[in-house]
């Protein structure tokens, strides 16, 4: 049984790796987190085979949990009317209210827990083993809380299991639930140790080099942020900290250059979004990363590596969007210019 966690740096061809891993013989389950990713993988699979072959099933993670794991065993027995992605149970809730909202939708962050408390995890494992030969999980770094616990159980299935993810792109948790796996992402070594303890081999090499980011960008990330990333490319690209008004004005006026903000990206004009929301995007040429006050300070002091993990990871996501040049811009200047 192949049980691997492949650490994939940004732009290293993670999706391509997943698609290449499939064939027309074995039965594959591909899980990914976002609907966008599902669509992306689906179209890449269709491009490879001319259609979605019957032996490859692609699910978004929660629809997999609900449709493939919950419903077959518990729909009639327990009953549910779908998933509540936003709500959370009151911390004093008892009984069913811990798992269901008032429309009897299951709280997404506790969906995996519902499987466990109803004792169907083994049945779910058997079902996965019965219908699939290989399970591929994308963006595995975002598994948290109950979902990570579920993942640890699923590892024991007698199927090939390939987990792909980038610890440093962990910007989000599928499940956050009190103390359940609260410190999972505290540091890389501890995180990897959890996988190794579950019998998963950690592979940092296969997807350790980026196709997207240039030699210069990767060096910049290694040196300033302390994140291990290398590249297949050997060209140099421009990295520039821009704080002059005319320079910033030019960047803001360029529709072609995406501006990535720490937050509220959508409120800024012309091709702007948040660092975290750019995750998974692969089509940007030049990228302008707007540094919020704190990050700007850390940058100027040469201490980006010491940023709080979540901020650091989002920044890493934003920086690694660039295929060409990288511009760093202080947010305070941007605001001042737009206000004036």
């Amino acid at each position: 049984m192949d049980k691997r966690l492949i650490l994939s740096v940004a732009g290293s061809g993670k999706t391509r790796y997943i698609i290449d891993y499939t064939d027309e013989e074995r039965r594959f389950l591909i899980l990914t987190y976002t609907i966008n990713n599902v669509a992306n993988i689906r179209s890449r699979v269709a491009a490879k085979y001319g259609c979605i072959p019957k032996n490859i099933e692609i699910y978004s993670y929660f629809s997999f949990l609900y449709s493939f794991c919950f419903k077959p065993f518990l729909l009639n027995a327990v009953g549910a009317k779908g998933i509540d992605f936003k709500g959370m149970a009151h911390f004093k809730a008892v009984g069913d209210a811990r798992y269901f909202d008032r429309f009897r939708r299951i709280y997404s962050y506790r969906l995996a827990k519902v499987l466990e408390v109803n004792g169907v995890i083994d049945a779910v494992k058997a079902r996965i083993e019965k219908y699939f030969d290989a399970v591929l999980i994308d963006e595995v770094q975002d598994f948290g809380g109950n979902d990570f616990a579920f993942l640890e159980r699923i590892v024991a299935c007698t199927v090939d299991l390939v987990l792909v993810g980038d610890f440093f792109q962990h910007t989000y948790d599928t499940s956050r639930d009190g103390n359940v796996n609260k410190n999972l992402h505290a540091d890389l070594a501890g995180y990897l140790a959890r996988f190794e303890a579950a019998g998963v081999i950690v592979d940092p090499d296969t997807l350790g080099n980026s196709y997207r980011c240039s030699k210069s960008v990767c060096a910049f990330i290694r040196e300033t942020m302390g994140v291990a990333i290398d590249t297949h490319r050997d060209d140099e690209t421009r990295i520039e900290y821009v704080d002059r008004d005319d320079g910033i004005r030019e960047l803001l006026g360029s529709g072609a250059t995406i501006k990535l903000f720490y937050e509220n990206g959508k409120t800024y004009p012309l091709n702007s979004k948040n660092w975290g929301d750019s995750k998974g995007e692969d089509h940007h040429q030049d990228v302008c990363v707007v540094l919020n006050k704190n990050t700007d300070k850390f940058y100027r002091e040469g201490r980006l590596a010491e940023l709080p993990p979540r901020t650091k990871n989002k920044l890493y996501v934003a920086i690694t969007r660039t295929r060409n040049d990288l511009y760093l811009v202080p947010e305070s200047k941007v605001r001042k210019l737009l206000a004036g």
Partner: protein
Amino acid sequence: MKYITRVKLKNFKRFTEIQVPLQEKLNIIIGENESGKSTILSAISLVLGGNRGQIEKIGYERLLNHGVVSAFLESERRYEDLPKAYVELWFNDFGEHELDGRNNSEGVDGHGLKMEFCPNDEFGPTIRQILQGAERNFPFEFYQVRFYTFQGDAYSGYKKYVRHIVIDTSQIGNDYAVREYVGDMYDTYAEPLEKVVHQNEYRKLKEGFGLNVMKDLNERAEKYSFALKSDSKSNIRTDLTLIEESIGIENKGKGRQCFIKTEFALKRAEGVRQKIDVALIEEPENHLSHLNMKRLVGMIAAADDKQLIIATHSNMISSRLDLRNTIYMHSADRNPILLTDLPDDTAEFFIKAPYHGILDYVLSKKVILVEGDSEYILMAKFYEMVKGHSMDTDQVHVFSVGGTSFKRYLDVANLLGIKTAVVRDNDTDYQRNCVELYEDYNADHIKVFSDQDNGRSTFEKCLYQDNEAVCTEWFAAGRKTLTVQEYMLKNKAESALEILRRMQDGFAVPQYIREAIEWISG
């Protein structure tokens, strides 16, 4: 092979609760009229069809069990007690996880589809109001149908987990049924893409007809123009027919239609693109001559690449296709009996034996089995003489076995619990022929009757010895070499007919036959 392993019905039509196990290939459902044979077939077809419109067209009033509805109306009429009905089809495991789950009546792992009728909770308050009304009104209009897989997903007819076809010979001549049939067969042969191309080309053809062929006409019509319709009621599917030797199927004789339909659906063909998994055939014997029946039986026997579920009244179909494939529906609301356990040699006997009414036997409750024609001819009269009324009154039937193969019938009686009196000759050895031979059949419902005097070895001898005077009177005239008893033995059927014709008071019914009649009527 994809096949149905069992059908479960709850509160559906005439059944409150029933389960019908099915075999992988051939299933022959037999039963009296109104025993629910067609209900089983239509239940299967409705579930596989997954068509809400079809359900609503039939109406919940006709789908929900009447008894359950009346019982509800008699009760306190509480909303939560409103009856639900369902039909579940359980399949073999053919690796489709969408069918796999515990969302079934037993809550256990299984592969299947479920059709459920239940009140629509959205109308809860209105329904409650209706129920509280003074009038005893059942809220059929507020019922809804749900189709879902055991995994818990809703499905509709577009999702063909299992492909099926219905061949209902009672619907022969019905335009709709012909269209459905032709459409189904078209689906099995045509590739999905091919169908789209056909649809498109056909529409263009019609448009072209309006534009080109009717050009002159339309110019005269000026402001308006004539054209061919192209919509849901007139399209390639509605206009399709099946041609054999340049005659459309709907214009063939009924018998031929039946035959073509079955043959076309059953045959294994190279051209088929979407194989039919389950064929539901209702009374295939309708409109068929004896010869065509034999051919039909041959076709059915050869169709081993799909599951066949056949409802029939035909002795020939049920026995020639091996009684072990038979599912016997009671008239009562009970699980059917399978003849799967019939001994091999007995099943083999009924496949090979000359004409017999085995199906009629199976459907009977009380039976007198006799050896031959003469007993058969006289038994009804004897019954009347002993009981003072006819056998039909007591629902007793007589079957002539045509020899002494009683055991074959008793094997069937054993499975079905048919009360059977065997009336036979002792053939000069009562102990061996009438006692020891049947030791294995000492059931309460099976009994062998024969004269215990080895001298009285045949029916005719008993008749003669018990009625010497009248027999001599009736048969002595003209006898030169044979004695009366010898004559009767040599001309069994003729003398039985003569006795029946001249029967008079005081004629003595042999004691063992009298006992058989008393026992069977009891």
